[in-house]
């Protein structure tokens, strides 16, 4: 039993539902009508393009193309991470992109090889959606982790210098900050894992059930994907932080001032 098709008129009926938030918006002057329309339009165009593109990629199913697509996603994810944490792009892009690639790709291939036991490791139908889930989740972990790490060092510069003066190596002086930011980066993923299935059914599982898979198969996938996401978030955030500290500090062990992007003021 596969999911029933949604016809174009049915899609229009779905869009019609948007009149409800728009009406609320008009009545109490939320000032969100423009944003609502913009966001929904963006989503529709983006997903339509992805739909067309994925159809093409799935039909071709060329290993090289699939990997290239994945690397494209990695680049966008790295770019987004650094943009969101207000750090200088040029200095940190390379370490972040390398960390993302090594951490996420190796976990993804492990998953495909040993958990799914795929014949073709680079099978588009698995590589791309699962890669997307892993990347998307480790992206938010990295944004939280790297962002907090550098903000914390900047805020507590005296503490960091004091630890250096006590004879700490660069790594030893950074360790309390690494610990703190990894904790913050992993906490949301752990909370998601702990509440899976209690409040709502996770997206992938819902998708599989709608697609006609048995609930048991769906939860097996869900459990293994959640573990994979946790592992790849932990690994990529650790890698990103360790590798960016190399690029971000000088021979004296000080964090370079240039890596912080100047705020809009002044």
């Amino acid at each position, binding site marked *: 039993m596969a999911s029933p098709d949604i016809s174009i008129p049915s899609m229009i009926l779905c869009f019609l539902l948007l009149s409800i938030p728009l009406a609320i918006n008009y009545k109490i002057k939320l000032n969100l009508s423009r944003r609502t329309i913009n966001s929904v339009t963006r989503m529709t165009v983006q997903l339509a393009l992805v739909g067309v593109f994925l159809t093409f990629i799935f039909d071709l199913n060329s290993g090289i193309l699939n990997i290239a697509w994945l690397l494209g996603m990695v680049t966008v994810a790295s770019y987004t991470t650094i943009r969101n944490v207000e750090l200088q792009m040029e200095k940190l892009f390379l370490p972040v992109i390398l960390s993302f690639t090594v951490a996420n790709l190796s976990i993804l291939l492990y998953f495909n090889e040993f958990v799914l036991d795929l014949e073709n490791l680079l099978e588009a139908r698995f590589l791309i959606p699962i890669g997307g889930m892993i990347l998307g989740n480790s992206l938010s972990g990295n944004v939280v982790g790297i962002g907090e790490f550098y903000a914390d060092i900047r805020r507590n510069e*005296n503490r960091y*210098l*004091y630890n250096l003066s006590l004879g700490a190596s660069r790594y030893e002086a950074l360790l309390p900050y690494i610990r703190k930011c990894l904790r913050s980066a992993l906490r949301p993923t752990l909370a998601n894992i702990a509440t899976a299935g209690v409040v709502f059914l996770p997206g992938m599982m819902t998708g599989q059930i709608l697609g006609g898979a048995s609930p048991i198969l769906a939860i097996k996938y869900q459990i293994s994907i959640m573990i994979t996401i946790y592992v790849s978030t932990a690994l990529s955030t650790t890698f990103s932080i360790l590798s960016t500290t190399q690029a971000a500090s000088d021979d004296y*062990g000080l964090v370079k001032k240039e890596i912080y992007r100047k705020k809009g003021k002044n």
Partner: protein
Amino acid sequence: MQDEIIRYENAGISFGNKKVLSNFSLCIPKGKKVLLKGKSGAGKSTLFKALLGFEKLSEGAVYYKGKALSPQVAWQVRKEAAYISQDTDLGEGPIKLLLEEIRAYKPNRGKMNPEKFHMLINEFELEKDILEKNFERLSGGEKQRIGILIALLLERDIFLLDEATSALDSGLKKKVADYFLKHTDWTLFIISHDREWERNEVEIVNVEKAGSG
């Protein structure tokens, strides 16, 4: 000089475009006690930080044991000299854990003897259960004494004391100064406004503010 520890040669310090110190020269041989006096904002703390590699001099140079400062020399200073900053900031959490962390640093392994620690707690009138407390909850004076204690426990013999006794009452200031000054072999480089440090064995150096420009 063979036993020269710290030497500044025509050191100059600027904050932004403002020159606060220029042509500062000073040599501190082993065992010498020097008290640096001068208005705040005259760049005294920056002289310490330049030696530790935390700041750069805008002019001149600083030498440690005859070697001009370089990254290697700065790392050496951090292993051999004990620095007490204006406001000791150890971080958050129980002091016991924070001290364990410091003790795990390579140059400090096997140091920080617990018996000596308890002796110093008595000496500087800290509460016996201070180890169990969270550092961020301590008063300014207690934090300062913890900083002094750590510096003493590292068993180093060169000390950079930046207003290390400012938050203590005069009885304690005297005790701390006595403790440091009785060790004739220790090299002390002191920044302080406290009279308790002004003794016969201490050379007083006045840092004058450079003319603006």
